[in-house]
């Protein structure tokens, strides 16, 4: 089967994810860890991130709407979010989390709310883009995936 067209698409998509700042070098590190013994590692770890971060987003939203706001807890929640985001190379997410943290430290509720909306949008966008990316990868099959470099 001729994968060259598919491969071109995959490489192009990955390049644009990097160029547009959605992902950074850490994502490459994850792909380096994928091999025959763990052929779906990247997709699995990314799935865990989205599951975990969705929960955190809900908790952050609830914590923001609770009066009086517990900024200490908010900071702790976004810290977790930021940490796991950086583990998968989600650099835009990580940066938005830093903004949120800054608003938190200033006890700026409105700033936090605005930042949360941005975080939710980034989260949804990244999720959609990565789902597309993994769908493309799945079409080539695990053997091709493991053997080829997508750089």
């Amino acid at each position, binding site marked *: 089967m001729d994968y060259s067209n598919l491969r071109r698409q995959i490489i192009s998509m990955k390049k644009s994810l990097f160029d547009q700042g959605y992902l950074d070098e850490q994502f490459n590190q994850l792909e380096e860890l994928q091999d025959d013994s*763990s052929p779906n590692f990247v997709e699995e770890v990314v799935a865990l991130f989205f599951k975990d971060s969705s929960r955190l987003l809900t908790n952050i939203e609830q914590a923001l709407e609770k009066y009086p706001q517990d900024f200490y807890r908010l900071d702790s929640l976004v810290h977790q979010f930021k940490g*796991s985001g950086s583990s998968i190379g989600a650099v835009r997410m990580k940066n938005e989390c830093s903004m949120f943290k800054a608003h938190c430290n200033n006890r700026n509720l409105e700033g936090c709310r605005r930042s949360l909306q941005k975080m939710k949008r980034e989260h949804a966008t990244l999720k959609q883009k990565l789902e597309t990316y993994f769908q493309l990868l799945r079409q080539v099959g695990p053997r091709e995936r493991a053997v080829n470099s997508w750089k």
Partner: protein
Amino acid sequence: MAVATETPFHVLAVDDSLPDRKLIERLLKTSSFHVTTVDSGSKALQFLGIHDEDTCPVSVQADQLEVAVNLIITDYCMPGMTGYDLLKKIKESSSLRDIPVVIMSSENIPSRINRCLEEGADEFFLKPVRLSDMSKLKPHILKSRCKEHQHHHQEQHQQSDSNSNSNGSSNPTNNSSSSSSDNSNSRKRKAEDNEETSPQKNRSRHS
């Protein structure tokens, strides 16, 4: 003609974040470690056989550990017991204090790093942890086993005067070079058998 089979070193990884746990597990396995992951400091202590509620820690002899642990790597920021708290408990335990401990943190705070190192942490990794960081682990394990071997050898010397039977089947300092791969007291293998360290298997397939 005994073949020295190498039991992989066993690392206990502690992190409350699920994606991070998956990542550290993969990093360690790729580097040929046997891995156990737990999501909290208290679960780590449970696994290691000490109970943190006790004011006097249960003194568990090293050879009573179900499964030997050669290194502990823990996240710093965790709810409840932080990585620092866990480090302290380990260093307070007579049976565990020689196990090397590595702290991971997403924040580069020099005072935090120093505090951990002063408390006895062997290494501090900035997150996200990378494959290249894994090569720093084995030297700490080998160093601690050398120390441990020396302690044990001293004990044996004292014992041998009163104990004429040195061929006990479970005696881990048996001088034959058949280090059995299912020897659960892998911690007690002589350091000199392992001086020729096996090369790290880098499983990276992407050139």
